[in-house]
Each structure stands twice: as C-alpha cells, then as structure tokens.
C-alpha cells in the first residue's frame, strides 16, 4: 500500500508541469460532471418524482372533475326525459302502451341526438315493460330489475344518478364493449312514488373524450374498475399494465418497467365504480425545462472554455516560459555556467531568470576569485621559492664555503657543506603544503647557520619552542622569509650583533609563533606600507601572509609590533592543529 503510494507520488512528481496541468484540468472537469450526476440522482430526481406525483394527482382530480361535470350535464339534461308528459303517461299507464311509448320516443331521439357517445336509452316501467332508442345492438336483461339489491341501489340515490358498468349486469353490448350506464329512478310528481327507471348507456368512447387532451407522450390515462379491469382501452394500442389498487380514494406508487421508472397514480372517482389511473414515464425533460438545460449546457461550455482559457493562459505565461527557462538552465549540466539569454516576460518568471543570472554571475565571480586566489597563493609560494632557488643564496654560500676550504679546518668545511645540503633538501622537498613546525625550524636553523658564516656571526639565534608544539602543522616556508627580512632589513642595517628569536606557544587553540629581531625596527609608516608597497621587504612578508591567509581561509593570522631602532616582532596566529598526513 505504502509502495503503491510512493509509486503514484513518484509518477506524479516525475511528470512535466504541462502534463500535470492537463491531468489537473481533466480531474476538475470530471469532478464537475460527477457532481452534476450526483445532484441529479439524489436531489433533482427526488424532487422531480415528487413534482410528477403531485402533477399527476392534480391531473387525475381535474380529469375526474371534468368527467363528473360531464355526467352532471347529462344528468341535468335527462330531466327533459323524466319530466316529459308522454314518458310519464307511458310509465303511469296500467300497462305498457305501445302508442304511448311511440309518443315518448321523440324525446329520446332528441336526447340521443343532443348527447354524444350514447349507445342506448331505455325508459323502463316498474313492471319491466320498456321502450328504448339504440345506436347499436344492446341486450337488456329484464331479470335484474326484479332484484331487490339492484332496485335498492338506485332507490338509494333518491332521484340522483347511479353510475355503473353495464348497468350492473342489466345491459350487455354485443361487441362486449363495456357500457357506462347512468340509471335513475323516475317518480310520480303527485304521489312521489317511483313509476319507472331511466337508463342511459354510453359507449366507453365517452371516456376517451374525457381523456383526450390530458394524455401526453409519456403519460397514459385510463379508467379501471375496482377489480382491475380496464374500461377504457389503450388509444395507442399499448397494453395497460395491471396495477395494484389500494383501499384509499387516491394512491400513487413508483414502478420499474424495462429499466424506466414509471409513476402510477389512481383516483377513485366519487359516486362511480370507475378508477382513473395515470401512468407516466419519468423524464427529466418534462420537469427540467429546456431553458434550464440550455443554461446548464451553456454554463458547462463556459466552464470548459474558461478551463481551456486558463490552461492556455497558464501554459503561455507559466509552464512554457518555465519549460524554456529550465531547458536553458539545463545547459549548466554541460559544464560552464552560461547565463540564460532567452526572452521572458517581466514577471516572476522573468525575475527568476534575472535572479538566476545574477546567481550565475556571482558563482562565476566566486569561482574566478577562488581560481585567482589559488593562483596568487601558488604564485606567491613559487616566487618565494624562486627568490631562494634563484641561486644567489646558494652561489654566495658556495663562495663562502670556498673561502672556508682555503682558510679553515676541514671539518668546518664539511659541516658547512652538510648544512647547505640539508637546507636545500628540506627547502626543496616536494609534497604537502603543510609541514611540521619541527621541519620549518630545522630549515631556519640551517639557514641561519649558513648566514652566520657569510656575515661573520653578526646574528645570534634563539629558539623558545615547547617540544609538544613541534608536531603541529604549519604551511611550508612561512618562517624563512620572515627570518630573512629580520637579517636584511633589521639586524644588518644596525651595525651591531643582533638577536633573532623564534618562540611559539599555544593559547586557546591558536598557535602563536613570534619572529623577533632587535634590528632597526620599523616606523609606523613603514609598518603601514608593509602590505601596500612592493619593495623587497614587503615582498617576502606580503606573500607569506597571503599564503597563510589562503591556507587557513581566515584574515586574522598575524600581528606586527615594532619600535624604531629597537625591535621588530611578527606574530603569526595559526589554528593549532597537528599536521594532516594525506
């Protein structure tokens, strides 16, 4: 798991900035889409269903109302029949009189021609005699009107209409089409006793006309009976599904059909055996208006365009310049530190370039300084060596020894030659720039021994160095030039025998080495000029100090004290450490 994480992070960080940017934008777009889908599924969709349910319920109620209204209209018009004298006379007659029936028929015809969708109209006497007008062949089962249950149902309406299917079994259309029957009792005006029945049978086409205009593309409406039979056949020829009708007057539930959600609503039309059912397929377009969808698409497009714009902007102003800058910078890998010379805008990236260039300039300067310093130090050392090796010291000493050979005992000559050889061996020894203090002191001893031979013992040399310090490492040949200065610029100019004293001690991890002479010393001005001017005295001193400063990489390495005519003392302050053996 951790490995996976590391791998992914590695993959991410290994990508170019541009790639990262692309993936980032893709991610944002995707999350936007996901957000929308979630919004739709969990919020919009729920809302939509609620809305649809309510809308369906309203539709059902209003449709049912218009249906009832239609029935009321028919019911009102049926008074024309009930109150007709010919009809009444026919009903009140002791038995069914054909002549009376014929007189009453005209009312039925009028009625029939006024109301649409009428299948048949029956006027029935209590004894079962009847006359009728039919638009199609309808069977009339007289058995039923003798039945108490059937009669009481109508009587219960107390003059009102009873709506039933097929007149509760009294009527039957030949084509098996269900008939919507409106039955009512006819009473005598004087006695208020029932004298007969009026039955108006409608084709179920009457229901179609109620539904027409309410139905939509994804919305089906139909009338069912309480036992689930479809009264009104599907207009589009589509089979109506079986639905579960609960006990309530009104009910709604969701149903899945072929992966599509449908909302089923039913409404028990009051005072009828009919149940109005609507089945609607849910569709977002129905409830989210096209405008909103267009706005949404527009927002999506604007968002996409914005993202693309930002991408292009970021690419143009950030990633591309950075890429170019980094490409240009990568030249540094090839070795020399070239400055970046590409054109960049004068923003942070441009500043980055400028800073980078400044840094390079600084680095180059430092490198040059370092090289310069190194060269200077080497040159200084070389010059010191050349000054000595340029063999005037050797030649002069050889002449001195030549004189000794002629004048002095042999062993003195041998001593001198041995000293000379020893001096040059150490002096010219190659290898480390660092030598032990012991070796440097040995060089001084030999050097002074030879100089004393040349200048008739005008020098007395004294060494005050703790044996423990002898192993400390110091840069090579830093004392010899100082001692040489002591002879040539101090003691010899005084005309008296002089002292050169080398002393060393350690204090707070600093190795102090004093080179003291009691020659003519220096004035304040001379001391100041020592590091400024280029005379033979300052040459040896300056070069030596510079070498020491470079060797230890610190400025504070010496002190100089002098009193004119009295003494001169150079104090070297070196970090106390043992020689490093490489």
């Amino acid at each position, binding site marked *: 798991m951790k490995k996976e994480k590391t791998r992914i992070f590695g993959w991410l960080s290994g990508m170019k900035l541009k790639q990262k940017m692309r993936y980032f934008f893709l991610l944002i777009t995707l999350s936007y889409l996901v957000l929308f889908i979630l919004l739709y599924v969990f919020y919009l969709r729920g809302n939509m269903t609620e809305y649809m349910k309510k809308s369906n319920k309203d539709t059902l109620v209003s449709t049912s109302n218009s249906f009832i209204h239609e029935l009321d209209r028919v019911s009102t018009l049926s008074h024309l029949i009930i109150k007709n004298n010919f009809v009444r006379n026919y009903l009140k007659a002791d038995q069914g009189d054909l002549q009376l029936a014929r007189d009453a028929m005209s009312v039925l015809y009028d009625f029939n021609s006024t109301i649409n969708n009428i299948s048949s109209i029956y006027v029935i006497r209590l004894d079962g005699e009847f006359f009728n007008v039919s638009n199609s062949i309808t069977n009339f089962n007289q058995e039923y009107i003798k039945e108490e249950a059937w009669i009481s149902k109508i009587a219960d309406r107390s003059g009102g209409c009873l709506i039933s299917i097929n007149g509760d079994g009294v009527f039957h259309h030949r084509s098996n089409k269900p008939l919507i029957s409106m039955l009512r009792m006819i009473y005598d005006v004087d006695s208020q006793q029932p004298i007969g029945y009026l039955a108006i049978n409608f084709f179920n086409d009457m229901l179609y006309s109620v539904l027409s205009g309410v139905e939509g593309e994804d919305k089906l409406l139909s009338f069912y009976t309480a036992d689930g039979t479809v009264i009104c056949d599907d207009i589009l020829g589509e089979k109506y599904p079986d639905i579960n009708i609960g006990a309530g007057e009104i009910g709604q539930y969701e149903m899945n059909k072929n992966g599509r959600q449908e909302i089923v609503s039913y409404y028990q039309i009051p005072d009828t055996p009919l149940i109005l059912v609507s089945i609607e397929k849910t569709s977002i377009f129905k409830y989210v208006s096209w405008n909103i969808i267009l706005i949404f698409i527009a927002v999506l497009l604007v968002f996409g365009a914005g993202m693309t714009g930002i991408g292009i902007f970021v690419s143009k102003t950030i990633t591309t310049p950075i890429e170019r800058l980094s490409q240009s910078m990568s030249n540094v890998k090839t070795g020399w530190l070239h400055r970046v010379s590409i054109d960049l805008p004068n923003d942070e990236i441009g500043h980055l370039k400028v800073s980078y260039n400044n840094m390079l300039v600084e680095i180059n300067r430092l490198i040059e300084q370092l090289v310069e310093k190194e060269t200077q130090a080497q040159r200084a050392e070389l010059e010191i060596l050349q000054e000595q090796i340029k063999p005037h010291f050797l030649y002069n000493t050889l002449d001195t020894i030549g004189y000794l050979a*002629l004048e002095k005992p042999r062993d003195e000559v041998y001593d001198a030659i041995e000293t000379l050889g020893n001096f040059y061996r150490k002096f010219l020894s190659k290898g480390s720039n660092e030598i032990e203090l012991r070796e440097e002191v040995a060089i001084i001893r030999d050097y002074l021994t030879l100089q004393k031979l040349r200048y*008739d013992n005008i020098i007395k040399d004294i060494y005050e160095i703790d044996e423990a310090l002898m192993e400390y490492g110091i840069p090579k040949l830093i004392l010899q030039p100082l001692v040489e200065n002591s002879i040539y610029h101090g003691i010899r100019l005084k005309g008296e025998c002089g002292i050169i004293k080398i002393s060393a001690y350690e204090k707070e991890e600093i190795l102090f080495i004093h080179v003291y002479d009691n020659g003519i010393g220096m004035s304040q001005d001379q001391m100041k000029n020592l590091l400024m001017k280029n005379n033979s005295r300052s040459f040896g001193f300056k070069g030596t100090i510079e070498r020491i400063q470079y060797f230890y990489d610190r400025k504070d390495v010496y002190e100089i004290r002098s009193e004119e005519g009295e003494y001169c003392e150079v104090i070297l302050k070196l970090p106390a450490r043992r020689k490093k053996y490489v």
Partner: protein
Amino acid sequence: MYRVMIIDDERALRELLKKNIKWEELGYKVVGEAASGIEAINTIDDIRPDLVMVDIRMPFMDGIEFSKLAIKRYPRMKIIVLTAYDDFQYAKECIGIGISQYLLKPIVRADIHEALKKVAEQLKDEIPEEDSIIRENTNIVYLKQYIRDHYNCSDINLSSIAQHFGFNTSYLSRMFKAETGENLIDFLNSYRMEIAKKHASENKMMYITAKLVGIPDPNYFGKCFKKYIGISYSEYQKTIL
C-alpha cells in the same frame, strides 16, 4: 702593476678573491678592500685603484649606485661587477653606465682571469692622468667650511671636493696636508665623529647617528668612531651617560 680594490659585504668573498686569483701573473695587485660602498667612498682616494671589483647587492649603497659615482669621479677607473643575481636588468644597467665586465657568482677563476686580461689591455691603452687644472691661492678656510657644510653627504670625498673646486685630486690632497697637517679625509671624518659624539650624548642609536653624519653604513661608522675617538660608540655612550 695595476691597483685593485675589492668591495663586497662578505669578508669571505673578499678573502677568497684575494687568495684565489693569481693577481701578480696578470699584472695586478690587491691594494685595498671595503665592506660597503660607503666605506669605499671614504677610502678610495687613499687606495687609488685602477680597477674596482664590486658586488651589486650591498646595503646602504649598492654596487650600481657606487659604480655610477665612481665613473663620474674616476673616469679612468675600470669596474668589474660581481653578482649572484643572474638578472638581465642589472646587466643592462651595468653596460649602460660604463662598467667594464659583468661576472656571475659563484666565482669561476678562469672567467675572472679572462676578464682581468681584457681590463689590463684597456688599462694599457689609457693615457696617464694629467694634472689639468691647478688653482693657486685657494683659501683653506673656505675649503674647510665647505667640508663642514657638507659632512652629512654620504658621497663626499677628496675627489668630489677636488672636482667641486676644480682641483687636481692629488694636488688637493698634498695642498690640504701641507696647509693643515692632516689628510682631508681625516679632517672630514674626525669632524663627523665630533658631531657624532654630540648625537651619542643625546642617546641616539649608532645607526641613526651614522646616517646623520654622512656615513650611513653603521659598520664602517663604527670603525671610524673607534679610529678617531679611540673607543667604540657604545662604550662612549656608556662613559658619558
């Protein structure tokens, strides 16, 4: 025999030259030596060399400086420069001012012999010096005053005074001795030492006094002090303090 003077700050080298070169065979004789240019200025009129062998690197007055002065005052005198510095700049300067030979240390006898032979040839061809200008009745007081005024010049000597007054050097020397009973250089240096005594009593260090009285080489000054005063400078200071 040509007269030779050796000027070198190393005694060993002077000795080596004296002992190692067959001077007589080449027609030379070493008649004097000096440990510095300053000493040489003071003694050269006594020594009267035909040839000076001089080292370049010397304190107070180096070989080149000395040679320039000597060539001006003693036009006939030959100069051989000896040096351990194999330096083209020096060599060029030496040829420019009329130095006869430029030899490198360490000493190689054959080279020196050859140089000496060449110089001897040149000396042979030289016309002996004549007493050219002689002025009579020179006021010795005026002469002494000049010396007293210029004692602190380190390059003043018999020759420079003679040149200044337009005398022949040997005439001046003889005349001064006859008039005063002492050599001119002794007069100059004893005057310098009298001044030096004053400085000594002011507790000045020897090398400073030496500079002040016109003998900036404290070694030679020390010699002079002892010679004219009888005791060394430091001893003198002890006696008076």
